[in-house]
């Protein structure tokens, strides 16, 4: 889309101007790069360094190699983060949370997007309405749902109890079998609009004459959806999936506000913060942070390479 600025210049002038412009670009970028190095690069480097120390809040600590992750204790047993069942439980919780919420958000978001993209009246109202959950701060939406999930006074517990899904006085949150899914429901409500807006933009970029051609050829609506809409939507769908997966994998605020550090809904980020701040062990906590970082990077690399996503 972008045409090079200097197409009209003669070749000799062009080289000089190009290098001057490159130098200008460096100056324009310098402040941003310095700030990013300070607020992102350095703290990340510090976290990685701390992960290999036994630092605490009071004690700068010393280098301990991989001991935070795994080491053989004097009695011959293996200890460390990688043998900690609480860590693995948080990994399982996070993965289940991510799969559940991203899957349903995608399906629901696609449904919302298709409805809004149809030619029926009232779609403008709908598009405005779905912005409401998106605009509500995460912590606020967590508290709103927390209230609806209260054991006795919560409307959702009431519905669950009258439908016989829950015992009297029980809620979806207090039941450890459903608590994680109760949180997934909050996340779906909050983030489906984002998904729907991204997919809607994708749908609107599909040229309408394609559908006209399909009509002329007599393709049914269902066939049009699977043969035309879905393939043409897949780039937008993939990018939305990646963003949402990465977001869900690092989830912290909503489960923390609703359930605190309860083990049945403890996510990886919550486990890391618990070690880091609440237990005041900077070294061990940073080791968890490092693992979370690596897991998320792994997901990103898998996504970007296997799906061959192109951002430009």
């Amino acid at each position, binding site marked *: 889309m972008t045409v090079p600025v200097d197409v009209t210049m003669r070749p000799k002038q062009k080289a000089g101007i190009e290098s001057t412009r490159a130098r200008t670009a*460096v100056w324009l970028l310098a402040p941003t790069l310095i700030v990013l190095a300070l607020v992102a690069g350095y703290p*990340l480097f510090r976290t990685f360094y*701390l992960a290999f120390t036994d630092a605490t809040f009071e004690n700068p600590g010393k280098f301990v190699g991989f001991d935070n992750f795994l080491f053989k204790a004097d009695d011959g047993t293996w200890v460390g983060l990688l043998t900690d069942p609480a860590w693995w439980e948080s990994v399982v919780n996070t993965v289940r949370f991510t799969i559940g919420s991203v899957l349903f958000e995608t399906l629901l978001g696609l449904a919302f997007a298709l409805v809004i993209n149809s030619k029926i009246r009232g779609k403008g109202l709908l598009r405005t309405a779905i*912005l409401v959950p998106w605009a509500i701060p995460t912590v606020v939406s967590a*508290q709103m749902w927390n209230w609806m999930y209260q054991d006795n006074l919560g409307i959702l517990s009431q519905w669950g109890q009258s439908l016989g899904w829950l015992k009297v006085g029980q809620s979806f949150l207090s039941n450890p079998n459903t608590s994680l899914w109760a949180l997934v429901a909050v996340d779906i409500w909050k983030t489906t609009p984002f998904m729907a807006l*991204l997919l809607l933009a994708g749908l609107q970029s599909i040229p309408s004459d394609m559908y006209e051609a399909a009509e002329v050829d007599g393709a049914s609506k269902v066939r049009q959806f699977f043969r035309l809409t879905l393939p043409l939507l897949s780039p937008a769908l993939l990018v939305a999936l990646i963003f949402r997966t990465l977001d869900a994998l690092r989830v912290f605020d909503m489960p923390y506000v609703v359930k605190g550090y309860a083990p049945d809904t403890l996510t990886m980020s919550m486990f890391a913060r618990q070690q880091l701040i609440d237990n005041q062990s900077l070294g061990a906590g940073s080791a968890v942070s490092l693992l979370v970082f690596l897991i*998320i990077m792994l997901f990103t690399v898998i996504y970007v390479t296997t799906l061959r996503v192109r951002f430009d």
Partner: protein
Amino acid sequence: MTTNTTNTTGMNNAAAISQTPPRRKNSALQTVGTVLFWCLIAVILFYVLFPFYWAIKTSLTPSGDLAQNALKWWPSSTTFDNYVQVFKGQPFARNLLNSLVVASGTVIISLLLAALSSYALGKFRFRFKTALMYTILGVSVFPQIAVLGGMFTTIRSLGLYNTWAGLMLSYMIFTVPFTVWVMTSFVRDIPNELEEAALVDGASPLQTLFRVLLPVMTPALITTGLLGFINCWNEYLFALTFTSSDSARTVPVSIGSFSGASIYENPFAQIMAASVVVTIPLIVLVLIFQKRIVSGLTAGAVKG
């Protein structure tokens, strides 16, 4: 009549366009389809809006009556007492001020940085540009938890723990990449003639940026700034970790750990009141800038 039908229901009924005979059957089907469709829209609207309605209803219920009236669909008596208590019982006004200052400060600095670098990334050609774009994208999807330990020690050693400046510094980790990324996609679309004309007239790059491009970029700056503001306003993990008292504590932390003015009342009436207070301005902003927000969101994510 017939042309109208084909126009308004084109998506729903394909056959109507090409075939004439079965039209009557189709229009009956269409009516059913339209009704079902409206039901679907009603269900979606209910799903999307109900939790917010419920919060408003609860916030207007006197907190003493909450035990009896919590499950009723309409408030039996309304009161603004919960809203008064939110501000009386705890330093909620101070929390609001903290959020406002931190979010505005972060956004202003980020937009300034983004204006400079998006000009370079959107209009200049130089080596490593793609690598740089990917790095910036990488930082923006970076899990906040990955820098928590390092950020904590950095902020403490700079003496910025529990201050506005400490929060602003830490928030820039997500606002700077985000604003740069979105602004770059906007700047790329500005016609090159504008910049060329300024260059031909002998303007320096900074003059070109601030005198010629910035006026064109203003709508994009507003959109990006608004989205960045919302991100900062909603941030929880850093605010929770890098503050220890109400002198810097922001609204989400306050709402997340709300205990109410007295232990004898159910704090949820007040929590919902506080929730409504911080949400209404956001919803109003979002409704006013609806179109721009949607385009900004999709520019940030889809178009890249």
